[in-house]
């Protein structure tokens, strides 16, 4: 009978050690604390989200230990940063640590810098075939994610310092969601990097992320988009807290798929082939990211429809943003049909995924720039 132990896969609960339990208890305790203190300001949905978040992040942290560490890191640094404010917005530019490191604006700037460094290091690691440099690049990406999330958390707090009525989750305009996009894409990549050991792809994925970083910088310095604006009435809804993140998991995953497809196309032509992962691995990664993206994009679109029914009087109004969401959805639906039913593989699908990024980018950014409609909060 002792042979059984060899192959019996452990269930998740069996794999947990005391650190995992401590982590989960901390999250739940945090949620209980927040509930005890702020329950009066929350509606039932927000209470569900609060405890839901504790459960979801416990589960994610159990499945992926590094993410758990990130969650703890973000919590500790954000709370520390918040404690330095003493409830005064002005201290963001007066206190040394806040001004240069962890006020929301500085943390976001550090995120930008770290993403640039990570990209350079990933490419260096690939050309030099350096394992060490690869690990440094991974660490830099994690640090960027850490600073980015701290930036968003502190920004959330800062919005309440402006006025309690102004306070809102920082995923309400183009500036904020671009940060979210960078962070989610980075995390998705790090997850696959761990599972597939594909540090060579980091440079490709960070190209897309750094394009977004470039946008954030332009948007900050040219348009002062980093200033916190109060929410327009249409956005004052708990739906935003799930619709927007779900959407950006979709966008992030599609971007990741496009980065991988670029690597695939190069490797397929023999360029960098010896440095890049095998074609099967790239192909599989491409499929997996599109699958994640498609699933979350579907959920996001449905959540959007339910929200629209509540705010605009109809679940579908053929608003340009809605229509482009449909186009993106149809595009990847066709991609998945070809791959799953036809069993199609190879460069055609890689090209399709790459061009899919253009469609996705238009839906995400182009609609706001060139077309008008109900989703006008994201205008440039």
């Amino acid at each position, binding site marked *: 009978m002792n042979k059984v132990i060899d*192959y019996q896969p452990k269930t998740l609960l069996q794999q947990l050690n005391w650190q995992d339990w401590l982590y989960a208890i901390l999250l739940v305790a945090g949620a209980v604390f927040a509930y005890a203190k702020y329950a009066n300001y929350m509606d039932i949905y927000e209470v569900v989200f609060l405890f839901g978040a504790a459960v979801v992040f416990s589960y994610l942290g159990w499945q992926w230990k590094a993410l758990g560490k990130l969650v703890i890191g973000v919590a500790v640094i954000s709370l520390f940063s918040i404690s330095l404010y003493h409830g005064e917005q002005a201290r963001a530019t007066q206190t040394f640590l806040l001004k240069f490191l962890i006020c929301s604006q500085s943390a976001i700037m550090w995120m930008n810098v770290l993403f640039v460094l990570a990209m350079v290091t990933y490419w260096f690691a690939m050309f030099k075939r350096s394992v060490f440099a690869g690990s440094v690049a991974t660490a830099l990406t994690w640090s960027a994610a850490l600073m980015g999330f701290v930036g968003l958390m502190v920004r959330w707090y800062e919005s309440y310092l402006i006025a309690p009525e102004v306070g809102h989750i920082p995923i309400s305009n183009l500036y904020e969601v671009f940060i979210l996009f960078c962070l989610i894409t980075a995390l998705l990549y790090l997850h696959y990097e761990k599972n597939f050991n594909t540090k060579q792809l980091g440079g490709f994925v960070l190209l897309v992320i750094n394009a977004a970083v470039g946008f954030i910088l332009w948007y900050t310095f040219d348009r002062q988009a980093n200033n916190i604006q109060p929410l327009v009435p249409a956005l004052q809804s708990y739906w935003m807290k799930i619709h927007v993140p779900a959407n950006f998991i979709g966008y992030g995953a599609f971007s990741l798929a496009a980065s991988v497809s670029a690597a695939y196309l190069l490797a397929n032509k023999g360029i960098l082939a010896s440095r890049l992962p095998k074609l099967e691995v790239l192909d599989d990664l491409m499929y997996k990211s599109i*699958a994640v993206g498609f699933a979350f994009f*579907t959920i996001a679109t449905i959540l959007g429809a339910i929200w629209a029914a509540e705010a605009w009087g109809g679940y579908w109004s053929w608003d340009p943003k809605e229509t482009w969401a449909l186009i993106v959805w149809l595009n990847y639906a066709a991609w998945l*049909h070809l791959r799953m039913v036809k069993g199609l593989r190879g460069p055609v699908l890689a090209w399709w995924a790459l061009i899919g990024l253009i469609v996705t980018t238009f839906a995400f950014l182009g609609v706001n720039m060139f*077309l008008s409609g109900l989703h006008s909060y994201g205008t440039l």
Partner: protein
Amino acid sequence: MSSMRFAVSMLSVLGIASIIGTVLKQNEPYSNYIIKFGQFWFGFFEALGLYDVYHSSWFLLILLFLITSCSLCIYRNSPLMVKEWRTFKEQATEKSLNAFSHQEIYTVSALENQNLANTKQQLLMFLKAKGFKYKFKTQTDGSELIAAKAGTHQRLGYIFTHSAMVIIFFGGLLDGNLPFKVQEMLGVKHIETRDIPGSKVPAISRLSTNNPSFRGNMTLPEGSSDNVAFVRVRDGYLVQELPFRVALKDFRIEHYATGQPKSFESDIVITDSDLKAPLTKTISVNHPLTYKGVAIYQSDFQDGGTKLNFKVWNLLAKNNATQKLDGAIFQKGILGADVNGAGANAVKVEYNDFRKFNIINLSADGKGKPHNVGPNITYKLRDAQGQAREYVTYMQPMQIDGKYYFISGMRETVQEDFLYLRLPVDDDLSINGFMNLRAILLDQANFEEIAHRLAQNVAAKNKAPDGKALPLNKPFENSVVQLLKNFAKGGYNEVAQVIEKNVPEKEREVAAKAYIKMINLAAFEAYNMGLAANKKPLLVNNAETQALIQDCLNGFSDMFFYGTPYFLQLENFEHKEASGLQLTKSPGEKWVYLGSALLVLGIFSMLYIRERRIWLLLKPSSNQVHFGMSSNRKNLDFEQEFSLYREQIRNLVVSK
């Protein structure tokens, strides 16, 4: 039509067709399209249904094709999927196992009796631990086959996703305008294009309360009520009757400290014979009210007939007499009429819009923070010939570069930007100082006096060498009077024309400078004359005063381009708002949500449940165990799993 190629083509065609409606703004008033495309292309695009792509027949046809294809796929493939879902494929034989790409044959020491039973037991425990379900089959040659499967629920994903699409389409169809389209084609209904009250619309353009689905709008001024909604269709509308009456008690806009709107709320009262007492409820954006299956949303707002009180100045009059004018938004008034209410100089005033809050960025570089500059009023002045100019006038003075001005804009057509008249204010933020100066500078009777004062000043400054005052310079005085006469005719522009006509080109700049200086000095004297007449303290000539005088003179010159002598100063208002409500009835909504839930379920089953099958053939005759594995989707996960199982089974069956 159920082919893969067709389905993917339809997905692409639908995607491309959808783009059209995002590029061309949909459901605009038809006049906008005519201006944009011209009459010929307008008609062409209208025939193609491009102004409402998503409700056009051809778009519906694409959807219909897609859904038919989808339904055929379900019809054809579902039995197969169900079969795959249930079967263990225990008919597999050694021959078919040999054909597998993923297989392994283990040679075992002795596979009989007790040993056979043990091995079988071990393998079954293995399969169970891995989450496989299994079935036995004894082969004709006495060998035993274990057929196992896991993750076959994936097959249900196919049925779920595809039926979800059909259900969503069905829900959408219920909420679409297909019934009206059919009625319109049969001639039972047609749209109303005239601008008439809802109650006057004939029955052929009315939809009864039995209409299962609609999406209409209703504009209610505060204190009024209605029981119909208007449904926009192409360049007209339909009247949707409601099974109840909606009244608006109050509409409120709340603002953040920065001036941006924070909330729009309407207090509405529903009266219905089925209700014992009227139903009172506050609705706001994101918080609609549903009554009798009709959802009532806060959609927009507009003016509901705000009452206005004006002080009207005649800019070109030689006095500063004013008259009172009362009006209300959406109403008309008259100015300059004779006793009969008409006359060649009569001007009609059409009050179009009143806005209580106006958030404007007034900083010079555009980087400062926008803030609220207070109420403004938009109106048209139409002369006897029917020519109209549009005006926008702000009630309170605006701060521009540290100084305050009354602002009023004028434009001749809607395509143009407003040209703004900026009138400077006094110390007490009133417009009177400017108006007094204007009246004095327009009245020739004052020019001698002004010229005389200027001459005295000049004489006082330039004393003769012996200390005696110089005699007054009569020609100088005359030229000042002449200059003021020209200035009164048309401001700087008139003076410039006089210079151009009378002064040689070389000397023009010098002359212009001298004239401008003289006008400034004259205006300073005139301003003080005005103050003296009103028994107010006189201005001292300093930089601040000079800036004020300069602003006054600019305003004076610009008023000749204002297009009307009437300057309407808003003194008081009684704000009345109207709330824009959207009323919808969508029986398809629950179907769409059902379909959506099914879609998500299906997608997750299809993408994240992996179907795998394992066959284990125990052959006592040859002391062999034959392991075969397959999956309907071959990918890396499958390869890894196969390699792992191959070794784990080897450990189990091959005794060391």
